[in-house]
């Protein structure tokens, strides 16, 4: 009997476990998922928590995994690729024939001096964690005015559009509370524009501008001076705040570094088309846990998992892997007031305007604010819980399509 061990039961780990269990013979394959906690968190829902949304954020992993998949709750201490074993913190050892690392990426406020301390969750907040999102909700409710700074420490981060979405939603939130004139909003980024890709960056930059949100670019934070409520950069620029909403440094799991499997941020270097570890062929890293040069996002986890599953059947048969991931990502971007836009891109094609997913029929619009896009984002929660993580069919191909997209003539790369 062969044993497949999947570390992490988040989006990628769950999709892959379910898809493989359906097609690998029960008598020949034992599939084990190991995760630290019993509940699966719907991460896209965290964005709405600070503004009052709270439905359906957690479900037991056991219920999302098909029968015939073993679930172990425990923290991984290290992987030994030579012995093909996983050691848990409680001392247990789990052996594997094939290992899938799907432990994602997480916020590390401890990596920026001054961020964690007496002001953490008082005047300094994050919204990428369950507790953080709820603490920020209370802070926003009690905010009486002043300067709100939304800040990104360093790229890459999980869901790179989320800090912009948060900013748009906060601007609308204060407007609806009729206190917009008492709040100054500043968006602070280490990038040289609002977003990472030129055309989308210009569209999003324009939206920030219309909403009178100041953007500070090329700001790489060295430390937070929590007493003076000030961000200090490596080149000694300072930005003061009354309320700081930061996206701390994102890093892969510590055991990846401890096992010598990671890069400088504990991401596993993989082949960008097959997700196979460059160092150990029987290890694959999927979802946010690898170093793919595309967004760390649920859509990438989903699309690349589909490619991985097809390749895995070939690999265990000793065949060449013929399916190639193209870096396809697809993200809804909330822009406030019940509207949103949508971006769709891959390794080679940046987000372009147009219609999605059925060519000119849409019904969704790319890089253009519509109410339909907002409803699409909300409807996605149902799709996520009932179709996506269960490994069922979805009407969106894992490879990006140019159908419905066009290059804006006036938008030429500088």
């Amino acid at each position, binding site marked *: 009997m062969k044993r497949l061990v999947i570390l992490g039961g988040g989006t990628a780990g769950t999709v892959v476990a379910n898809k493989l269990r359906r097609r690998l013979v029960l008598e020949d394959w034992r599939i084990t998922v190991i995760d630290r906690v019993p509940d699966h968190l719907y991460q896209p829902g965290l964005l709405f928590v600070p503004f009052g949304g709270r439905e359906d954020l957690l479900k037991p992993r056991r219920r999302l995994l098909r029968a015939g998949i073993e679930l172990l709750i425990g923290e991984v201490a290290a992987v030994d690729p030579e012995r093909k074993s996983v050691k848990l913190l409680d001392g247990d050892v789990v052996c594997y024939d094939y290992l899938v690392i799907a432990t994602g990426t997480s916020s590390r406020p401890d990596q920026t001096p001054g961020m964690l301390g007496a002001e953490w969750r008082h005047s300094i907040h994050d919204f990428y964690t369950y507790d953080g999102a709820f603490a920020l909700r209370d802070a926003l409710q009690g905010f009486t005015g002043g300067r709100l700074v939304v800040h990104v420490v*360093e*790229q*890459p*981060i999980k869901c*790179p559009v989320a800090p912009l979405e948060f900013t748009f939603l906060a601007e609308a939130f204060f407007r609806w509370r009729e206190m917009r004139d008492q709040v100054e909003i500043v968006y602070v980024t*280490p*990038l*040289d524009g609002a977003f*990472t*890709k030129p055309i989308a960056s210009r569209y999003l930059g324009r939206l920030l501008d219309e909403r009178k949100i100041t953007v500070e670019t*090329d700001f*790489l934070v*060295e430390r937070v001076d929590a007493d003076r409520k000030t961000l200090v950069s*490596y*080149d000694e620029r300072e930005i003061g705040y009354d309320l700081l909403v930061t996206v701390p440094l994102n890093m892969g799991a510590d055991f990846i570094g401890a096992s010598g499997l990671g*890069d*400088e*941020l504990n991401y596993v*270097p993989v082949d*960008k088309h097959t997700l196979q570890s460059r160092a150990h062929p029987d290890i694959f890293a999927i979802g946010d846990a690898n170093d793919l*040069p*595309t*967004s760390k996002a649920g859509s990438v986890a989903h699309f690349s998992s589909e490619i991985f599953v097809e390749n895995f059947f070939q690999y265990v048969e000793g065949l060449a892997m013929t399916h190639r991931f193209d*870096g396809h*990502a697809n993200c809804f971007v909330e822009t406030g007031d019940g509207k949103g836009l949508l971006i769709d891109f891959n390794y080679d094609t940046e987000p372009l305007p147009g219609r999605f997913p059925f060519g000119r029929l849409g019904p969704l619009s790319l890089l253009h604010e519509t109410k339909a896009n907002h409803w699409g984002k909300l409807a996605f929660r149902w799709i996520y819980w009932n179709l996506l993580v269960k490994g069922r069919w979805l009407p969106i191909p894992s490879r990006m399509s140019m159908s419905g997209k066009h290059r804006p003539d006036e938008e030429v*790369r*500088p």
Partner: protein
Amino acid sequence: MTTIHREIHTDAEGFLTEYDEWTDDLAVQLAAGIGIELSDEHWKAIRFLREDYPTHGETATLRRVSTLAGIPVKQLFALFPGKPAKKMAYVAGLPKPRGCV
């Protein structure tokens, strides 16, 4: 920026597009073009970037340079003021860093 040397190929922003067209002399010229005189510390960073690129497949980030080459980020800002990641890549003849995706 595109015509420092007749036989080199660059993108619209002046970043070299051919890894093998880079030479030490060219680095000195590229650096001078953006107001930087190369010291030993500059060279340490540039050599790391050059050696890292072929195996890693991407231009190293500031964090990667600081972690693997042992040059603190603060010093990289002092060596290549303003936009160190971009300036280092430019002088080292590598693609503009992706920043993120």
